[in-house]
């Protein structure tokens, strides 16, 4: 029993230990080229979009949902926000539209999933195709530039990140919204029998996720300076990899913590950055990442859960 307890405790902190080990390793090999101020700032900037989206998506994963549409929703938010900015010239309008569009899209995904009883895998894929289709149809092969707007530095990004992480942490761990979403993830039938309004809380989770995607879209657009149709491709997979690496079980429940999103996002960003700094040929980076990911999953994933994919 004592051993089981130790193993349980250890599996919870393994992703964090993994992150520290990876950080220490790259620091030892790369020296101040890796742990210097400039590179650390760079890491924060690079992992910002994935981390912000992952923080929000954790709410959806908490109840066992999944969202493959985040990349496409990000693209649609950026496109409409950029168009609104071009019309009005106001960066506040850009932010407002980015968040509004993302929340609306996530709300629709939530409604389709919850009310129409479509599996979240399917409903989010449908939203992905729809958003990409809209972006491709509207933009054709053009792009929208906002190069006159300066990308906020980490002096703005870090507080925003900390604020979002703190807010979702509080919601997830200390409010009914978070606790009920986790309960739904653990056992939806038991939650429903206990009087939890399962549909309502799941939709709220999608709204929170949409909000963070909107924030990420705003900062991503300013960082790129241009909105083109290939923005956001592959983001959903990166986010899922990040949260899984961080220790979150995709079937949801009480493993859903903000720590997963933060640690996982940092881990994949640090690995890509660190491997390049220490001079690993780019052709080997994918192999090394795959092996490390597999090792982390082997040690952290709770194999007593039924299946990898959520309900």
């Amino acid at each position: 029993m004592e051993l089981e307890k130790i193993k349980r405790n250890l599996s919870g902190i393994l992703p964090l230990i993994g992150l520290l080990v990876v950080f220490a390793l790259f620091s030892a090999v790369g020296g101040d080229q890796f742990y210097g101020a400039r590179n650390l700032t760079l890491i924060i900037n690079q992992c910002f979009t994935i981390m912000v989206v992952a923080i929000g998506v954790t709410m959806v994963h908490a109840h066992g949902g999944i969202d493959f549409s985040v990349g496409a929703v990000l693209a649609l938010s950026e496109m409409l926000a950029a168009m609104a900015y071009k019309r009005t010239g106001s960066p506040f309008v850009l932010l407002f539209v980015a968040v509004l569009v993302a929340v609306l899209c996530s709300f629709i995904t939530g409604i389709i999933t919850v009310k129409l009883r479509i599996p979240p895998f399917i409903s989010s894929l449908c939203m992905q195709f729809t958003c990409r289709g809209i972006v491709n149809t509207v933009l054709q092969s053009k792009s929208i530039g906002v190069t006159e707007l300066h990308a906020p530095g980490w002096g703005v990004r870090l507080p925003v990140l900390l604020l979002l992480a703190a807010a979702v942490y509080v919601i997830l761990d200390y409010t009914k919204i978070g606790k009920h979403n986790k309960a739904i993830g653990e056992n939806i039938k038991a939650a429903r029998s206990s009087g939890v309004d399962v549909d309502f809380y799941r939709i709220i989770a999608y709204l929170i996720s949409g909000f963070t995607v909107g924030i990420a879209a705003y900062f991503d657009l300013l960082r790129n300076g241009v909105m083109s149709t290939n923005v956001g491709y592959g983001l959903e997979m990166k986010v899922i990899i990040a949260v899984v690496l961080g220790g979150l079980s995709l079937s949801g429940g009480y493993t859903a913590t903000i720590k997963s999103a933060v640690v996982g996002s940092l881990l994949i960003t640090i690995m890509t950055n660190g491997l390049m700094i220490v001079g690993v040929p780019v052709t080997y980076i994918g192999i090394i990442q795959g092996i490390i990911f597999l090792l982390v999953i082997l040690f952290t994933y709770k194999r007593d859960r039924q299946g990898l994919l959520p309900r």
Partner: protein
Amino acid sequence: MKGKFIALLSLVLILAMVLGACSSGSTPQSPTPPANTPAGTPAGTPEPSEEPVKLPGFKIGLMVYTNSGGWFDRIYDGVKALADATGSTLVLASGATPDEAIAAVENLCASGVDGILDLATGGVSHRLLQICEEYGVLFAAANNNLLQEEGYETFRKNEYYVGSVYADDKQISYDIVSDMIKNGAKKIAMFGLPPGISAAFDNRFAGAYKAIEDAGMSVLTEARSFVMPEAAQNLLTQYPDVDAIFSAVDASNYLYQPLISGGYGGKIQISCFDDGGDVNVGFENGIVSHCVEGVNAQAQLGYILLYNALTGNKLLMSDGLAPDILIPYVILHSANEFKDYVDRSKGGIYSFDELKEFIVLLNKDASLNKFIELAQSFGK
């Protein structure tokens, strides 16, 4: 207890990162690029003597959207040969989307490269230049028409921008489809990735459409999808009488087998661009009619621009700005021509001997005009 331990570890990590980020006193100044001297008076040129000039080596980042396949190998071979001849080392990176391109350039700069040769700008060249300026890294581009990019008029004046070498995707596609029509094609389909993935692809389709329109015809169908093998199968199933396919991408992985199996040999014309597969099979089976090559030449010429700039001898136009050099593609029409091109590309389509006269440290009379003439005579 566990919670406190985790909280402590997290706090230590965040503190370490924040302290590390704050440890430097002030924002580092952007290093100034090597002072440029006119081509006639290269910096550091030794007094005329019989001893050969020792070329300084640099660490150069090479960014391509893929790092595998025959197409990439031809590019890498050519640039590597020049790097070896100039005592430089190459660091590879890849980035297809704007985010990836920005992250790749950031990581290259952080790894200490002196210059970047970018064949995959992701449409965000202005941002890439800003990153390079911050790190004091010079930037050259190839295989990208930067003139169409957002912010071009601003970033072309950036002192860290050394120029680009690009081809006219629209014109080459127009020529190919016009040729197909001249050779009897009546039912022409479009094949490739969806719109917006790359300006080069979109320009190719634009050229192809224009040729069809100018001939008073209409496109049979468009098969543009991320799932290209499926798109190829659907195209041939739904339109078995197609007699020409304009492919804006490589065709060997998606089209050859179904066409050969379907008995289309000798009855269809297909184009392919940047094909890393076995194009000879396509030619020998009478499937491929036009194979477009030349990006490896663009990469080598881009390297020369970059290398000169790194040695403080940037080749500049008469207005003092970096050149954006238009170079033709080469169209190959047979297995022999393709094999010959591949053979000549080993070690670089241009040899170092052909290009060294444009390296200012080796030839103080190196002329941008002659360099542009060389580029424009490619394939002729």
